[in-house]
């Protein structure tokens, strides 16, 4: 019975190693754990899927900084792939000065996958200060908010923005954020201009948007890595997108890690009871 005592006092480094393996292994081994699509993800997907190239550009705002990149970047990538697969025009921007670099990197990377050209198929906007002011100003005239794009081209010369004045020509604005910026989009974009708002947020913040989904103030939401993985599943299924499905891989790691943790907890408890029984017997 010495075994149980050893399990019970297992050196924590073994646990660390187990966790590391559980998380890293799925990167290399192809496991498919079926992913069930949750209603908020489905809602966002369906809305974007009904759009056509003449519905006007969709707007994706990268309202996050490097600290929440892990959870949020896969969402941005999945949304961009969906839009580019459908030949929709895209405007990307950020309400954060530190988010603008991320927006530019990711948008241009994904655009390359689809041979999309800046100015014609998509636009990256530069940083403009103030959340409220920026959103309100897009509601009036986006070319006034951003006189030039990120690369310094005048926005009124870009064919992608032909006939686009304000929210009326932008069918949806999606805020990807680990903080409270989606609230600003809801308050100023939806309430004031009736713009459809989509939200991509971290797993921890996701629950706070449920009331807004219920009242339809938010058209759809991706919550955490799971939400991103669901979206990736949808676009893989219907558009056969290639490229790394970061979140799906991450989700496999996530599932593996949770399973390992639960096995550890069960082992811990078995050893606890075994040792107790042993002690009772010896007493």
């Amino acid at each position: 019975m010495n075994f149980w005592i050893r399990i019970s006092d297992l050196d924590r480094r073994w646990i660390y190693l187990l966790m590391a393996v559980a998380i890293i292994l799925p990167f290399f081994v192809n496991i498919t754990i079926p992913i069930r699509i949750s209603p908020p993800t489905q809602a966002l997907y369906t809305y974007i899927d009904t759009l056509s190239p003449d519905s006007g550009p969709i707007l994706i705002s990268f309202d996050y900084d490097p600290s929440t990149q892990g959870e949020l970047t896969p969402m941005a990538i999945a949304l961009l792939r969906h839009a580019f697969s459908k030949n929709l025009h895209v405007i990307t921007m950020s309400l954060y000065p530190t988010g603008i670099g991320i927006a530019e990197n990711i948008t241009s990377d994904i655009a390359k996958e689809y041979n999309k050209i800046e100015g014609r198929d998509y636009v990256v906007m530069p940083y403009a200060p103030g959340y409220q002011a920026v959103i309100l100003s897009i509601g009036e005239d986006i070319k006034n908010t951003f006189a030039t794009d990120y690369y310094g081209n005048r926005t009124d010369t870009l064919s992608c923005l032909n006939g686009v004045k304000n929210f009326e020509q932008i069918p949806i604005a999606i805020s990807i954020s680990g903080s409270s910026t989606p609230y600003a989009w809801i308050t100023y974009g939806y309430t004031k201009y009736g713009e459809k708002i989509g939200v991509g947020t971290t797993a921890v913040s996701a629950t706070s948007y449920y009331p807004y989904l219920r009242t339809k103030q938010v058209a759809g939401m991706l919550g955490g890595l799971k939400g991103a993985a669901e979206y990736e599943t949808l676009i893989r299924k219907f558009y056969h997108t290639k490229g790394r499905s970061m979140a799906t891989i991450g989700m496999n790691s996530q599932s593996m890690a949770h399973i390992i943790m639960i096995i550890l907890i069960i082992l811990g408890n078995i050893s606890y009871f075994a040792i107790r029984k042993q002690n009772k017997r010896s007493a």
Partner: protein
Amino acid sequence: MKRRLPLIIVMLTGIGMIIQYFIPHPVSKAIYKQSIDWVIIISAFYLVLGVGGIFIINYQKIKRRKEGWWLSIITLSALIITALIGIFGGIDNKSVFMDIFMYIQLPMQAAMFSLLAFYIASAAFRSFRARTPEATVLLITATIVMLGRVPIGSLIYRGLPGITEWILSTVSLAAQRGILLGVGLGSIATSMKIILGIERSYLGGGE
């Protein structure tokens, strides 16, 4: 005077800020905005003090060749270099300062933060043992919620995400609300004691 003046200042600023809350007049709003800046400015002086302390401690370590004195050289030079590059080289997105932040500070902070993935597992393994009924409840809820959040959970049992959601929005919410109500009452009472000059430990004990 020496003992009284700090307490009088506490009382005046405290009551002033309470009154300000009730006055929508622009003068009151302006005072509030200005006061935030004042607090930020005053706090900045403490950073000077703190950094001064760091210099003294590390300098002494180096001077006396204490164990690990050369590590102090790393801290001090990193501090000085980063600060100088920031102040003289600018802090915008394309500056060297931002590179230092993005590729030195941020990765290490993120790595520190991510150690939690390991620690949370080891903490759960060690302490989630059904020793008492209360501990058992804790361990069962934790397990349900843990499973309810990943795709594999709904493969085991379809209803798990729903149960998770339900626990979080009822029982869990109730307990948190109860704790927060108590914390609210307690911290208001402490704030009031501060304004009344009864609570003055922040002045550094006794007198």
